[in-house]
């Protein structure tokens, strides 16, 4: 299964790209509208890109009123990513979305690179969200959140149905001439190739500690990268930065994934699921559905 990574596709400006996905994940929606950070918001480095979009979004009310109905027309499963600044924010957002039949799952963005979330508050937020909705709940974590395996356990215990791994890690780029930060916010979130081994490790470790279904992402550019995430424990892959240079990536990576899996003797890519764990079964907090 292939999704987009939150914040890396607008299904309304590029419906033909969204239609190649198994589900569309929205950019993170917050309680209030946000214009986002001042430009410059993006920078390219030698190993990935930086962004400091700052969760630009219309806010939950206008999202429900204007955006969601138009997304519904695409007839794709919709996952809504939500973000806030307190457990109450998340609970509110989830209550809103619980009323929207078109929403298939809610992804809790617990890892905006500019707000580090200690384990305690991850548990609290997930629990509050769990109270507020019966939709599938995915907790999105960053590999920079300390010991991600333990944070994942906290999310699982608080009622998350799955994990989305990984969000960006804080990075910095300086102008080669002035040595001033390129981004208006100085630091931003690093995505793309640099995240690849980090994402693989996070998926591996969190699958080991929780056994939850995992949406794996971070630097996926080819079917081989996707297959490796699946082997590490992901059951779904999400595409982020690659969509910027290759909007045809969903279809391409889907067929590469099948071909790679077949070349290694698997009928289906998911037959390679968790293969990297060998015989070591993950602690069976919950098993993959």
């Amino acid at each position, binding site marked *: 299964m292939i999704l987009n990574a939150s914040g890396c596709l*607008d299904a309304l400006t590029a419906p033909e790209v969204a239609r190649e996905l198994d589900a569309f994940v929205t950019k993170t929606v917050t309680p209030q509208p946000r214009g986002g950070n001042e*430009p410059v*918001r993006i920078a*390219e480095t030698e190993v990935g890109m930086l962004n400091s979009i700052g969760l630009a979004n219309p806010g939950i009310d206008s999202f429900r009123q204007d955006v969601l109905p138009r997304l519904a027309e695409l007839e794709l499963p919709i996952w809504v990513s939500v973000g806030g600044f307190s457990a109450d924010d998340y609970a509110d957002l989830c209550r809103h979305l619980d009323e929207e039949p078109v929403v298939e799952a809610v992804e809790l963005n617990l890892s905006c690179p500019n707000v580090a979330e200690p384990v305690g508050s991850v548990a609290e937020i997930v629990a509050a969200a769990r109270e507020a909705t019966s939709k599938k709940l995915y907790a999105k974590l960053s590999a920079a959140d300390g010991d991600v395996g333990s944070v994942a356990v906290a999310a699982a215990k608080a009622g998350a149905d799955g994990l989305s791994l990984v969000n960006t890690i804080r990075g910095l780029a300086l102008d080669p001439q002035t040595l001033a930060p390129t981004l208006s916010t100085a630091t931003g979130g690093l995505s*793309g190739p640099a995240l690849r081994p980090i994402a693989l490790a996070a998926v591996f470790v969190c699958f080991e500690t929780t056994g939850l279904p995992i949406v794996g992402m971070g630097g996926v550019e080819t079917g081989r990268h996707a297959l490796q995430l699946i082997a590490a424990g992901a059951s779904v892959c999400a595409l982020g930065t690659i*969509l910027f*240079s*290759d909007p045809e990536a969903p279809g391409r990576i889907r067929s590469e994934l099948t071909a790679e899996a077949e070349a290694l003797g698997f009928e289906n890519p998911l037959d390679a699921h968790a293969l990297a764990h060998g015989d070591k079964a993950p602690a069976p907090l919950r098993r993959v559905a």
Partner: protein
Amino acid sequence: MRREALIVAGVERVGPYSLVSLKRGSLESGVPGQFFMLSPPGRLLPRPMSLCLATRRELAFLIDPIGPGTRALVELVRGQAVDVLGPLGNGYRLDVKRPLLVGGGIGVAPFPYLSERLGRPPAVLGFRTSEHAEAAALVPNAEVAVEPRLVTELLRPRHDVLACGPEPMLAAVARLAPRSQLAWEAPMACGYGACYGCAVRIGGELKRLCVDGPVLDAEAA
């Protein structure tokens, strides 16, 4: 929005710039002022480029090598393939009565194609040096100002201005000709509305230049 690997037909120096011609494949040329995302070899992100020239067989881009991406593009050689996505964004409205093209520096890039489509209207072009001014040869009926002279000194009244150039120039043009159409720039990661990286203030709000622009009415910006 189509994407295709196009073959480099040739690269020609034009002063400090390079004109990179690609075999057209099946891409549309779009409206002048629209842009394409070109993927420089070895770089993570594609770079936005205005279409400079369109013939039946080729699409050409005038490129100023100012950083790693543009340098990689001007170092392309005949026969290499380069991924191109487009045309993208909103180009110039062509329903104008007395067009005047106003350009500065690499901002002249969209003008050869634009001039062709508008029936070769007059153009006034500003450049930093006479070397840079060599690019004026690509634009018919052009009058040239080289610094310290400024292109705004050449503006003509009662014309429909279509402008492209550095921000200070566009700001000056907007003051002098409030009904002009201006083509803006912003760093872009995707070019098709996916990343929200290209935000600029339009009418007080942060909007995506790639979908709401890059050509905007001077009054909107």
